[in-house]
C-alpha cells in the first residue's frame, strides 16, 4: 500500500519536474541573442518574401507563449518540431544519434561500475596498506585528467601510434560498434571511475567499522561472506545515489568525447545545435537529458528499499 502511494507521489513529482523543465528549457531560448532566421540565411542574399516564408514555416512569427503551446502540443504527440539546420524532423535527427550516445553511456557505465567498484572495494579491504594507498593515488591522478585530454592521449597512443583502435566513427553492426566505442568509453569513464571508486571505498570503510560487522567476524563467519552480506549490501545506498547523478553527468560529458572521436551522438549534436541556434534540437536534447536524470533517480529511489531494507524501515535501524 505504502509502496503504491510512494510511487504515485514520485510520479506526480516527476511530472511537475518535467513541466517546469519544459517551461525553463523553452523560454530560455529567448534569452539567447541572435535571430534563428538570420542564421538560416547563412550569409546569403534572400528575397524579402523568402524571409517571411521561412519565418512562418518555423512558426517564428508567433508570440512566444503560442510557440510554447505549439511545442508542448507537439511533444505530447511525439512531435519534437523540425530542426532548422538539418531541415528534418527532430525525432528523426535524434533517432539517428541516440543509439551512439546510449552505446557510449552504457559501455562507459559498465566500465565505471566494474573498475570503480573493484578499485573502491579493494582499497577499503586493504585500508591503510600499500594497495589502498596506490589505488587512492591512482584514482586521484586519473581524476585530474579531463575527458578531452584523455581523448587526445588515447587517440595518439592507441589509434595513431599503435593502430589498435579506430580514431573516429561509430562503426557498423554490433561488434564493430563495440570496437569503435572502446576508446571513447574509456575517455568518458575515467573521471567517473574516480568518483565511484572513492565513494565505494569510504562507504565500505564506514560499514567495516560498524559493530555488527565486528560481531559477525568475531562469531567466526567467513570474511568473504561478511563482506558480501553485510558490508557491501549496506554500502550500496550511497553508491546508488552517486550513480543516479552519474547518468546526467555521462550524458552531458559525452559531448566532449563525441567531438574528439567524431561520433555522431546527441552530445556533439547539442553543442553544434546551440552554436547554430537550432532551438528545436537543443530543447529536445535538454528535455531528454532532464527526463533521463529524473527517471533514473526515481527508479533508484523506488529500488533502494528493496536492496537496502533499512531505508524502508526508517532510520531506526541505523
Amino acid at each position, binding site marked *: 500500500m505504502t509502496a503504491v502511494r510512494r510511487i504515485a507521489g514520485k510520479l506526480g513529482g516527476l511530472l511537475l519536474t518535467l513541466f517546469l523543465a519544459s517551461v525553463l528549457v523553452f523560454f530560455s531560448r529567448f534569452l539567447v541573442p541572435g535571430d534563428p532566421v538570420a*542564421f538560416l*540565411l*547563412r*550569409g546569403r542574399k534572400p528575397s524579402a518574401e*523568402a524571409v517571411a516564408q521561412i519565418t512562418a514555416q518555423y512558426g517564428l512569427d508567433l508570440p512566444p507563449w503560442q510557440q510554447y503551446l505549439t511545442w508542448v502540443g507537439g511533444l505530447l504527440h511525439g512531435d519534437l518540431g523540425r530542426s532548422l539546420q538539418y*531541415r528534418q524532423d527532430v525525432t528523426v535527427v535524434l533517432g539517428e544519434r541516440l543509439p551512439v550516445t546510449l552505446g557510449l553511456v552504457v559501455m562507459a557505465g559498465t566500465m565505471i561500475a566494474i573498475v570503480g567498484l573493484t578499485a573502491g572495494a579493494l582499497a577499503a579491504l586493504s585500508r591503510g596498506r600499500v594497495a589502498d594507498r596506490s589505488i587512492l593515488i591512482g584514482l586521484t591522478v586519473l581524476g585530474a585528467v579531463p575527458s578531452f585530454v584523455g581523448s587526445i592521449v588515447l587517440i595518439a597512443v592507441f589509434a595513431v601510434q599503435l593502430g589498435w583502435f579506430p*580514431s573516429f566513427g561509430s562503426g557498423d553492426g554490433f561488434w564493430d560498434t563495440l570496437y569503435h566505442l572502446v576508446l571513447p568509453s574509456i575517455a568518458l569513464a575515467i573521471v567517473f571511475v574516480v568518483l565511484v571508486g572513492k565513494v565505494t571505498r569510504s562507504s565500505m570503510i564506514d560499514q567495516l567499522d560498524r559493530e555488527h560487522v565486528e560481531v559477525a567476524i568475531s562469531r567466526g563467519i567467513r570474511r568473504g561472506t561478511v563482506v558480501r552480506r553485510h558490508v557491501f549490501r549496506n554500502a550500496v545506498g550511497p553508491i546508488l545515489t552517486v550513480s543516479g547523478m552519474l547518468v546526467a553527468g555521462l550524458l552531458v560529458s559525452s559531448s566532449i568525447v563525441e567531438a*574528439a572521436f*567524431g*561520433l555522431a551522438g546527441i552530445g556533439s549534436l547539442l553543442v553544434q545545435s546551440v552554436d547554430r541556434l537550432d532551438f528545436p534540437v537543443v530543447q529536445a536534447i535538454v528535455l531528454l537529458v532532464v527526463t533521463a536524470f529524473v527517471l533514473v533517480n526515481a527508479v533508484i529511489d523506488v529500488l533502494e528499499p528493496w536492496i537496502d531494507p533499512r531505508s524502508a524501515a526508517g532510520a531506526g535501524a541505523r
Partner: protein
Amino acid sequence: MIPTRRTARRSAVHRPAALAAAGLVGVLVLSACSPGEAEPDATTAPEWELTAQTAAPSGDIDSFTWVSYSEPYSLDYAYAFDYADNQVLANVCESLLRLNPDYTLSPGLAESFEHPSPETWVYTIREGVTFHDGTPLTAADVVTSMSRHLDPEVGSSWYSAYQNVAAIEQTGDRQVTVTMTRPDSQFNLAMGGSAGVVESAATLAQKGADYGNSTGLVNCTGPFELTAWKSGESVTLTRYDDYWDEALRARAGEVEVLFMTDPNARVNALKSGEVDGGWMLPPDAIAQLQGSGKGDVYFGLNTAVGSLIVSDLEGPLGDERVREALLLAMDRQGILDAAAQGYGEVTNALTTESVWVGASEAALDDAFDGLEEYPYDLEAAKKLIDDAGVAGEEIVIATAPLGNDFAVISQGAAAAAQAIGLKATIQTVSPSAYTALFSDPAARDGVDLFYTSWYLSSPDPLEMYGVLRTGEFSNYGGWSDPDFDALVDEAVAIDDPAQRSGITAQAQRIANEQLPWLPLFEGPTTVFLSDRVTGVAPSVAFLYYPWAATIGSR
C-alpha cells in the same frame, strides 16, 4: 567546423608572378607527384607549387574514404551554399553547365546554349541522360528545378543568381528559355554552380520537405549516386553505372565522405592512413602531413581572398585615409606567415587572377599591375592618421574561435590599429554569431572590422564587385561610390567576356584605391591524397566539379 562560405577559412590562391589568367592552365605546374618533403624550417617560406592535375590512376578502385570538416547542412541544391554541402553535391548532381578545374565553363546537362537577345538565354537539354532512378532527363525537369529558386517558400540560397529572371519556360521538346528583366551576363555564368543544378521533378514532388536531407536524399544525374547519409557521421556515394559522360565515369565503386569537425581528429585520420584524402587542410598540419609518409599534399587553384571587411563607415574607418593607414600598418606578410604558415601571397585586389577567365590581356594588366601597393609603412600610416585627426578613436574588430588564422588576423589588425594611435578592441563572438555578421545588420552593430575568406563561385570577377554596389546585401559597410556602381552595372550588361573585363578592371582599381574591404592575402586550395589513390585535380572547382569521379588507385 563552421563556416558559411563567407567565413570559411584557409582558401585563397597562390599566384605566381608570371601567371596570367588567359594562359592559366598552361602555366600551372604539371606535377605528377610531388614527394613529401622534410618539414620546412620555420624561418624560410615553405616550398610549394601549384598542381593542375595529379597523376592519372593506374586503374579503378573499389572504394576510398574522404574527410570533410563539417556535415552538409543540406544536399538540396537550393541550399547547398558552403564547402561542406557542395563538395559532396558536386559528385552527385549536375548543372546545366560544368565548371572545370581550370575555372572555365563547358556544356553540362545543357549540350549548348544560345543568347539570341540580351534578355534571353536558350538552353538545349542533352539527350540520353538519366537520373539515378533510371528516368530520363527532360526539359520539364529543368524548368521545375530552376523555378524553385524563384519560389519564396523554398527560400533558395542562390536567389541572387536569379534576381533578374522574369520567366523560365519550356520552349521546345528539349529547349528551355530564360527571360531576364534586363541584360545580365552573370546569370549564365552561375549555371555552372549549384544555381544550375537539375533534379528530377518527380523526386522533388515526392520528397517534399524532406528533399535533400538525410532521409529524403536526392536523385540527380551525376557520376555518383547518393546512397546513404549517416546523420552526423558520413555520406556514401555509389558509382552510377548508367552515367552519360564516359569521360567522367567514376573510377571508384564507392566513396565514403566522413564528417570530422575537430581539426586534430581530421589530421590524425589522414596521418594514420585511415582516410584517403581531404580538401582544405589546416595550414599548420601541412608539414606534418607531408612528413607522415602516408600520402602527399597538393596545392591548387583557388578563388578566395582573405580580407578585412570594413563594416562601419560612420566610425573612424569611414575616412579613406584611415582605411589606408590601417592597411599600411599591417605587416601582411608576417600575418600570412603566422595565420597560414606562409602558404599564400599578399594581395592588393579582392579577386584572384583565376576568376578572370576570358579577360583581355590589357584588362588584366589594368586590373592587377600598378595597383596601390600598401607596403608596411608605420610612419606614412601615422601621418595619415594625423591628417584625418582620428588619433585616440576606437575601432572594434570582431572575431570568433574558428581557427588559428582568425586569432592571428584579429590580433594583427588590432596591433596595427594601436601602433598608429587608434584604440582597438577585439570582440570575440561565437561562431554562429560570427556567421550572423554576414546576414544580420543588427549583428554588425558596433563592429568596425571582421575577417573573411571570400571565394567566388563563377568564373568572373564581377561576382565580387557586384556585392560592393550601393545597397547590396553583402555590402556590409554600406560603402557607396556612384562611379563604381555605374561601372559594375555597365559590365554586368556586357556579354563579351573580354570587353566586360575591361570595365571590371576599372571597378577593381576603384576598390583598390578606396578600400571598402582591406585585401590581405590569397592562398592555394589544398588537398591530401593517401598513397592508395590519385587522379584528382586540385582546384577550388571541387565545389562544383565531380572531383571524386576521377580518383582511382595509384
